[in-house]
C-alpha cells in the first residue's frame, strides 16, 4: 500500500473516529456531576457499615472483596505462567558480574531511595482504608524498592535479600492469606469474606475490620509477585544460555 493511500485511509477513518469520540464526550455529565446510584448509595452507607474512611477501600476489600480475590489470582496465575516459561528455558547459573559495574552517583541515590521507597510502600499498604492507597499500590512500591536495590545498588545484595525461593513463598502466603481471611468469615458463622473482627473506631489505624487484613495480604501478594517477576526477567538477562 502506498504512502498516499495509507494517509488517505488514516485521514478518513481518523476523522470518523474523532467525530464519534467528540459526540460521545459531549454527552458525558459535567465534572463533579456523578449520576450513578450505586456510588451514591455506598457514599451514604459505607462509613457506618465498614468503618473505613476511604470508600474505595471498602469497595475493593469489602463490598467487592470477591472481585479483588479474582484480581489477585489473575496476577498470581500470570506470574506463575512467566516463571514456568522462563525457568524451563535457561540454565541455573547466573553471571552477576554483568550487573555490578555502576555509576557511583546512581548507587548513592539508590542507597537513599531503597529504604525510603520501602517505608513508603508499607505506609501506603497500612493506610489504604484511611487515605488513598491500599495493598495493590503499596505492594508494587515495596517491590519497586527491592528491585531498585538490584538495578541501582548491587545485584548480589538483592539476590541475598530477596532470593527467589523467599519471594515465591511471600507471594504464596499473600495469595493464600486472602483466601484464609475469607474463610475466617465462614468459620465465624458469617459469609465468605465477611468481616469477622471488630470494626474499631473510624479513623484509627486499628479499624475497618478485615479490610485492613485483606489489604495487607494483597500487599504481600503483590510485592512478592512483582519481585518474582523482576527476578525472572533479571535472570533471563544474566543467565548463560544453553
Amino acid at each position, binding site marked *: 500500500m502506498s504512502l498516499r493511500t495509507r494517509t488517505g485511509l488514516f485521514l478518513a477513518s481518523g476523522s470518523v473516529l474523532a467525530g464519534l469520540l467528540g459526540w460521545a464526550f459531549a454527552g458525558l455529565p459535567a*465534572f463533579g456531576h456523578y449520576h450513578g446510584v450505586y456510588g451514591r448509595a455506598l457514599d451514604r452507607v459505607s462509613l457506618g457499615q465498614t468503618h473505613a474512611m*476511604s470508600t*474505595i477501600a471498602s469497595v475493593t476489600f469489602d463490598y467487592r472483596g470477591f472481585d479483588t480475590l479474582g484480581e489477585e489470582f489473575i496476577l498470581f496465575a500470570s506470574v506463575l505462567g512467566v516463571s514456568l516459561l522462563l525457568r524451563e528455558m535457561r540454565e541455573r547459573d547466573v553471571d552477576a558480574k554483568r550487573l555490578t559495574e555502576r555509576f557511583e552517583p546512581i548507587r548513592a541515590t539508590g542507597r537513599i531511595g531503597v529504604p525510603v521507597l520501602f517505608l513508603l510502600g508499607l505506609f*501506603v499498604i497500612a493506610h489504604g482504608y484511611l*487515605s*488513598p*492507597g*491500599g495493598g*495493590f*499500590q503499596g505492594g*508494587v*512500591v515495596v*517491590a*519497586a524498592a527491592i*528491585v531498585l536495590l538490584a*538495578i541501582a545498588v548491587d545485584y548480589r545484595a538483592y539476590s541475598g535479600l530477596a532470593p527467589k525461593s523467599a519471594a515465591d513463598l511471600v507471594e504464596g502466603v499473600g495469595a493464600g492469606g486472602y483466601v484464609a481471611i475469607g474463610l475466617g468469615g465462614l468459620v465465624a458463622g458469617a459469609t465468605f469474606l465477611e468481616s469477622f473482627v471488630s470494626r474499631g473506631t473510624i479513623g484509627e489505624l486499628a479499624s475497618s475490620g478485615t479490610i485492613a487484613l485483606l489489604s495487607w495480604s494483597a500487599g504481600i501478594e503483590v510485592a512478592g509477585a*512483582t519481585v518474582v517477576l*523482576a527476578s525472572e*526477567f*533479571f535472570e*533471563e*538477562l544474566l543467565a548463560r544460555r544453553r
Partner: protein
Amino acid sequence: MIPLQAVALALVALGGLAVVVARDIVRQALVNGFFGLSLVVLFLVFQAPDVALSAITVSSAAAPLVLTIAILAVRRREGRR
C-alpha cells in the same frame, strides 16, 4: 474545568504524541515514563488519588522495568547473530 485541569489534559495530549513521535526505542521507553507521570497528574487534579497511585506504580515502576529489560534482551539476542 479549572485551568490546572486544562493544563494537565494538554500535558497528557502532548505526552502521548511525544511517545508516538520518538523513534529510538530506548528514548521511547523514557518518554513513555514521562507520559505516565502526566497521567498521574491528570488523575490527581481530577480528584482520583487512588487511581493516581496505581498509575504511579504501573507507569513509573512496572512498565519501564519490563520495557527496559525486554529491550536489553532483544538487543543481546540480535547482537549474537
